[in-house]
């Protein structure tokens, strides 16, 4: 059974739909990468899963349970987590407080999880008393991912985690994502650096105009001449 499955999802912000039938299915062991041109509905797909916009048609199931149009405060305890592309840290709060907010829905002791996050991002332990707003772009992205991991998710969704980062940080973030996946967290991410991201994706989805155009493993998509010509810049 797929961890997350979107069946012909139609949705938008009221008015004309942006998603016109998106199909996505990934396992907990997968790294799923959504690529496509601007306005294809990549970020919108993640937001539709997370209840941040209205799904007007189709169904979304998570671990066999239908979650269409559920709100985040119900989805986070079920094991979904989302890192938005922008404004994804609480700038006035310390790094540690940011992480605590990620664990808001948990009532158990989360110090183990915090240790795990600090192990994943050692720099955050060093800066844990510092306001997140004072950190560099790459470090903020780590805070954002760390916050999302604090709920111990089964599926981590990332909206363009490499956006605006220097090439050195892009590689570091991608390596961390692979490592997080290696610890049993399913990944579903949207990426502009399509070729680089598909290289480590076990599932790739090419969207255009709010619909699936190509689906396959990352390597298959990279090898497909049509995908390469139309979506990966030759």
């Amino acid at each position, binding site marked *: 059974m797929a961890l997350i499955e979107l069946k012909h999802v139609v949705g938008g912000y009221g008015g004309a739909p942006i998603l016109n039938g998106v199909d996505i299915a990934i396992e907990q062991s997968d790294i799923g990468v959504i690529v496509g041109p601007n306005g294809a509905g990549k970020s919108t797909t993640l937001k539709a899963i997370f209840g941040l916009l209205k799904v007007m048609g189709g169904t979304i199931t998570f671990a066999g349970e239908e979650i269409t149009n559920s709100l*985040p*405060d119900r989805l*986070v305890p079920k094991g979904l987590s989302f890192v938005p592309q922008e404004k994804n840290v609480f700038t006035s709060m310390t790094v540690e407080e940011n992480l605590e907010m990620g664990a808001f829905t948990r009532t158990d002791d989360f110090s183990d999880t915090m240790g795990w996050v600090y192990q994943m991002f050692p720099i955050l332990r060093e800066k844990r008393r510092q306001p997140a707003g004072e950190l560099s772009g790459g470090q903020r992205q780590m805070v954002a991912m760390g916050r999302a991991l604090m709920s111990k998710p089964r599926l981590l969704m990332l909206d363009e985690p490499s956006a605006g980062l220097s090439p050195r940080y892009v590689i570091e973030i991608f390596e961390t994502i692979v490592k997080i996946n290696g610890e049993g967290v399913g990944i579903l991410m949207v990426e502009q650096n399509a070729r680089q991201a598909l290289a480590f994706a076990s599932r790739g989805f090419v969207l255009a105009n709010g619909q699936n155009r190509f689906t396959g493993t990352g390597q298959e998509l990279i090898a497909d001449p049509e995908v390469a010509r139309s979506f990966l810049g030759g």
Partner: protein
Amino acid sequence: MDELIFFINRVLISGTVLGSIYALGAIGITLIFGILRFAHFAHGDMMTMGAFIAFVLAGVLASAGIVTPLPTGVVVLPVAMVLAAIIALGIDKSFYAPLRQRGARPVTLLIASIGVTLMIQGVIRLIFGSGTRSFFADETKDIFRIDMSWAGAQRPISVTEPQVIMFVVTALLVVALHLFLTRSRLGKAMRAMADNADLAQVSGINTALVVRVTWVIAGSLACVAGTMLALDVALMPDLAFNIVLPIFAAAIVGGLGHAYGAIVGGFLIAFAETLAVFNWTAVLRPLNAVLPEGMALPPNLSLVPTEYKLTVAFIILVITLLARPTGIFKGAST
């Protein structure tokens, strides 16, 4: 020496009293702005309402023949705070929440809160009439006079019992609020939501719960501020409506959305006001002896006549908005 005592009585004590009231009111305004992103104009009337709740409870206590060592208005305060918080939640649920659900803009909510202002004042006038009432009709207001004759002063430092209680209560509430915002899970969630409401939602924070907590804090602190004001002066239907503008100024000067800023702003505005209306001749009178003949100090030497006290808050507000629009502590600029 008497001049100094006069200064302490008129500026230090009065300023601290006024500052405590402004601070407690401004905390509510700043928290509501931080969480719900609108200027809650009816906050002054929530203060007045809290004072009337305390007044009714004090009346009940007095008619039951219960005599307390502290002023009854203070004894009933915890119960009055609870009632005021419940009413604040009710007002949000009936008037503001439906507008929020329809995605109303902040201006719409501001205007709705002006409506709530008129409504609260109307209800109070309907029940209690428009006259002035006192908590101390059947009770004496104790005044502590600290004899300063050892320092060569004839005048004592005088402070009333409600004023002393107010200093203590304000200090305790500020410490409690600080601990809540920095130590508790819900307090941190409140700061998170004020910082970035979308991300708070994405993190799974129960934003509806945070909104309710905000009203409970704002409503109960407004009740304390209003009751303290009524204990210090008198109780009337437009008691706090008259000071809602300096309270807003305090919240903005401190940095909107920033609780500590509201406290600092409250005391800043209060001291600026008391210093501006203070008659400096009273302190400078000894200079008359050294001034040449015919050049005596005028009998009244205050920067601003008392009836124009309100302008002080506005001048500070204008300067703040020009020089540092986000306030002393960096608040929200929207």
